[in-house]
C-alpha cells in the first residue's frame, strides 16, 4: 500500500522566491495536515485541511498558504522565502478530521533549503 507521498524530496531556493510543495494522502484519507520541522526541533503545525476546507491554522505568516484538491491531494505554498523557512516540511494524512478516532500518517517530507 502506498503511504503518504510528498514531492519534491529536496529543493534549494533563494531568498524572495516562491515554493510549492505537494502531498498525496493515503488512499481513502480525506484529511491532510502540514507541519514544519526545523533542525533540532519537533514538527510545528501549519495547516489542516479536511474535505477541501481549511480546518486549522498554526502560527505562521500569511506567506504560507495551502489548498486541498477534489482528489484530497494538497499543496503548500510559501511566498517571499526567508532563510528561516529552511526546514523539513511534513505532510500527514488521516481518515477523519480529528485525532480522536484515528492517527496521523506522515510522509518522508520535503527538505527545503533557502540560500
Amino acid at each position, binding site marked *: 500500500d502506498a503511504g503518504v507521498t510528498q514531492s519534491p524530496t529536496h529543493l534549494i531556493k533563494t531568498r524572495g522566491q516562491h515554493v510549492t510543495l505537494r502531498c498525496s494522502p493515503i488512499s481513502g484519507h480525506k484529511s491532510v495536515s502540514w507541519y514544519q520541522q526545523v533542525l533540532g526541533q519537533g514538527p510545528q*503545525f501549519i495547516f489542516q485541511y479536511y474535505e477541501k476546507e481549511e480546518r*486549522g491554522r*498554526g502560527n505562521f505568516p500569511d506567506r504560507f498558504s495551502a489548498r486541498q484538491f477534489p482528489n484530497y491531494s494538497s499543496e503548500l505554498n510559501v511566498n517571499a522565502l526567508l532563510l528561516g523557512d529552511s526546514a523539513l516540511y511534513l505532510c500527514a494524512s488521516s481518515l477523519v478530521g480529528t*485525532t*480522536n478516532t484515528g*492517527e496521523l500518517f*506522515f510522509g518522508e517530507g520535503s527538505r527545503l533549503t533557502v540560500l
Partner: protein
Amino acid sequence: AQSVSQHNHHVILSEAASLELGCNYSYGGTVNLFWYVQYPGQHLQLLLKYFSGDPLVKGIKGFEAEFIKSKFSFNLRKPSVQWSDTAEYFCAVNGKGGGNKLTFGTGTQLKVEL
C-alpha cells in the same frame, strides 16, 4: 497555548537496559497524548496514543506510556531496549476536538549500543 516539554534530548543506553523518557505538557483542557518515533532514514510513525480510559497504554514493540493527569505527564517506558530502538522519539499533545493540530516536543534522540 499548548506546550510539550521533553526532558532528555540525548539518551545513550546499552542493550537490555530499561528506558524511561519524560514528557510533560501544558494545556488547559482535556487532551489526547501521543508518542511518535522516527527511525533513521524513515518517516514519523505512531508508537502509541492515549485518548481516555486506562492511563497505562501499550504500543508497538513493547513500549508503554503512563498518563498521570495530576502531573501533566505522559512518560514513555520500555523494560529492555534493543539496538533497533535507536531512533528519535517525539511526545505530542492535542486538545479534544482539536483536529490534527498536534503540538510536539523537541524530541529525544535515543542511541542503543550493543
